[in-house]
């Protein structure tokens, strides 16, 4: 037991590794925040495209479906390798100067947009069709009905699953660490290889958890608030 504790949670190594792991974790947060902002916007766009009515929009809907099917099914590791080592390898000039971190953000965005598109779509489809019809009969255009009637309700409903994906994204930034971006997990590996001690991984895990727990509590809070509001509306 003592040896296990020494290998994974040694106080000396804890202090020793803290600054390095922290410097790596800043990179995790950096990647997560930018990727999440991009994901929230792009996924909404694709979800709306997927719901477009009419025959004319069929190719667009098809593209949206192909995109979500493909990238929801592709492991992030593969997409990350292709983005970070593959894209600059194409020889296209400007890609050579884009940093590995930025390309990692691209990979995260591509994969998580596919997930989040489905979340948005579920929200949009959960809004009853009569709402849309009522809006259209009041003279709102398709776009206006979507913007002022459907999406506000849809997005409110999917906030908990969105935050869930947000947490997933935050953890998956560690995958980028295998490909030349020295974030917290890669710093932990580096530390383990230098000292043959695994406390660095523990420190990295603590940082991740510290960020995740407030988010989880916030999600709970939002769910509870919505429940209260909907109950009040029912009376």
């Amino acid at each position, binding site marked *: 037991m003592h040896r296990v504790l020494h*290998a994974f949670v040694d106080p000396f190594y804890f202090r020793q590794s803290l600054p390095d792991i922290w410097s790596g974790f800043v990179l995790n947060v950096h990647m997560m925040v930018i990727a999440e902002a991009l994901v929230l916007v792009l996924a909404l766009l694709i979800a709306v495209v997927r719901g477009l009515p009419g025959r004319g929009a069929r190719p667009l809907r098809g593209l949206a479906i192909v995109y979500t099917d493909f990238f929801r099914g592709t492991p992030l590791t593969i997409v990350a*390798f292709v983005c*970070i*080592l593959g894209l*600059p*390898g194409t020889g296209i000039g400007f890609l*050579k100067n884009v940093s*590995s971190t930025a390309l990692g953000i691209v990979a995260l965005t591509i994969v998580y947009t596919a997930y989040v598109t489905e979340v948005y779509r579920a929200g949009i489809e959960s809004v009853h069709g009569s709402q849309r019809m009522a809006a259209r009969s009041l003279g709102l255009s398709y776009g206006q009905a979507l913007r002022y009637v459907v999406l506000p309700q849809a997005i409110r409903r999917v906030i908990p699953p969105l935050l869930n994906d947000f947490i997933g994204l935050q953890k998956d930034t560690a995958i980028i660490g*295998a*490909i*030349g*971006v*020295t974030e917290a997990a*890669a710093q932990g*590996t*580096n530390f*383990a*290889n*230098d000292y*043959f001690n695994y406390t660095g991984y523990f420190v990295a895990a603590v940082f991740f958890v510290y960020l995740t727990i407030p988010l989880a509590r916030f999600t709970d809070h939002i769910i509870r608030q919505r429940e209260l509001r909907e109950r009040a509306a029912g009376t």
Partner: protein
Amino acid sequence: MKRLLPALAVAALVAVPAAGAQRQAPPTMHPGALTIALNPPAVGFQVGTLRGNDVTNPSGFEVDLGKDIAAKLGIPAAKISWINVPFETLFRPGAKPFDFAFEEATITAARQKVVDFSTSYFDANQGVLLSKSATAPHSLADLAKMSLCAQSATTGLDYVQHKLHAKQVHIYTTTAAAFSALQVGRCDAFVMDVPIVASQKNTKPSAYGAVAGQIVTNEQYGAVLSKGSKLTPLVNQAIQALTKDGTIAKLQQKWFHIDVKAIPVLK
């Protein structure tokens, strides 16, 4: 019958020491067979095809050496299994899934605390392989200012981080990923053992810039065994014998066509 018993007793007395003198199977994981860990590719040292955890059709300096050591241990080449074990996991404490590993591992005091090393079978320095677009460094101070690639858990990374104190280091988990990163220009130079980078440059000359220099680190490669392995002394004896009879020198000439002395020393 009465006369037979003493005869049997005498026969038994003679037979016991005879059996004792017969060669005992070496203390490998699976008696009579040998499991050798590799982590290809390292051109010259070892290349092969990965099939799951197995390395099929391995060839190279370390593969030939492995076969010669097996022969000294009395194990035929057909009884050797070649498995792939990531270099990064080589120095983690605990039992190893192999009898010994040939992965161009430098013998260091820190690593010796967690694994056994055999007698050295190769001497090397660190080398600097440039990307196609990088300008050659003329000193270690120049090198420290460049953006560098390194492989995790290697002495090259250790040097770059703790001795050179390079500003920008990109760490990759495999040699293959680090070479790809250098090829696509993720960094200016890859710091890794001279024979490995020089052999890679020879195989794919158009993919990289020049081998810009070497850093004298006087490293020695040893086979890696589990800490306290009973096989260590036997492997040591085999390597010593193979060094003495010139086999190792011959294998080096066979697999490496690089003139290490011609590579400038960075100071």
